[in-house]
């Protein structure tokens, strides 16, 4: 039971990643709407930022798995 709760708390990191990716995508959409000719550059930066923001969620996920299967 406590293991499951611990894993659930670890997966809470997903909140931050979701917010971050949402904000980044919103800003990127705004930027593309303003400057459609820079779309490809904005898109590559967005991709990188999303991957970095997503990493926190992945860390939480890995820790959740470690809590369940190793601990």
């Amino acid at each position, binding site marked *: 039971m406590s293991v499951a709760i611990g894993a659930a708390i670890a997966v809470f990191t997903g909140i931050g990643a979701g917010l971050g990716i949402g904000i980044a995508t919103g800003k990127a959409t705004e930027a593309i709407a303003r400057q459609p000719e820079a779309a490809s550059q904005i898109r590559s930066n967005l991709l990188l930022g999303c*991957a970095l923001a997503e990493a926190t969620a992945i860390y939480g996920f890995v820790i959740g798995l470690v809590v369940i299967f190793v601990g």
Partner: protein
Amino acid sequence: MSNIQETMMSGMKNQTAFTIPVLGGIPISEAVLTSWILMVLIMGLVFLLTRKLKPDQPGRVQAFLEMSVGALNHFAQDSIGPRWRAFAPWLGTVAVYIAAANLSGLLGLVPPTKDVSVTAGLALTSVCLIYGSSFRFLGLRGGLRKFAEPMPLLIPINVMEIAIRPLSLCMRLFGNVLGSFVIMELIKALVPVGVPVVFSLYFDIFDGLIQTIVFVFLTALFTGETIQEE
């Protein structure tokens, strides 16, 4: 329900494929076996595609190859700067390996990047490249001075980054591939027919390629940053 749990448990573990019966038995894990298969496939493809290259009248294959190499060089030039030439081949090699490893799930193989040892190895080579090139191009003094930038107060953080950068590179790739693997196993256990194909498009192809790009991009970015002179 316990069935699902058992599949998950067996999917999480790194199985030993077979054991070489010398020196008391050398265990070969599935990741290594899949890597060998991928190596053979990639090498075969390389020999096949580069067999009849002509400088004056490029065929369709050659035009595609030249375009890919050109794109890689352009990318390296953009992110590393004037000293990109030495790094482009390495970046391309790693990109091809990680992409093949992430996509190997489509062939029914176990992706090698699901094993944390593989991604840790890749991240270690990356960090050796990042700091090695810093000392190679800036000299010992210049490389050490890089740690005191932008101001000496940040030295502890810059030193910590030596460990954090490979850790985050390693965990990002490993977590993504393992996560998509686990989710795919769950979907396959719930709905065996049809639905997994749609999700596999996202989790296997899109996510795998994105992670390839991110790994190579971050390595190039860090390298470019550490070899930059004022």
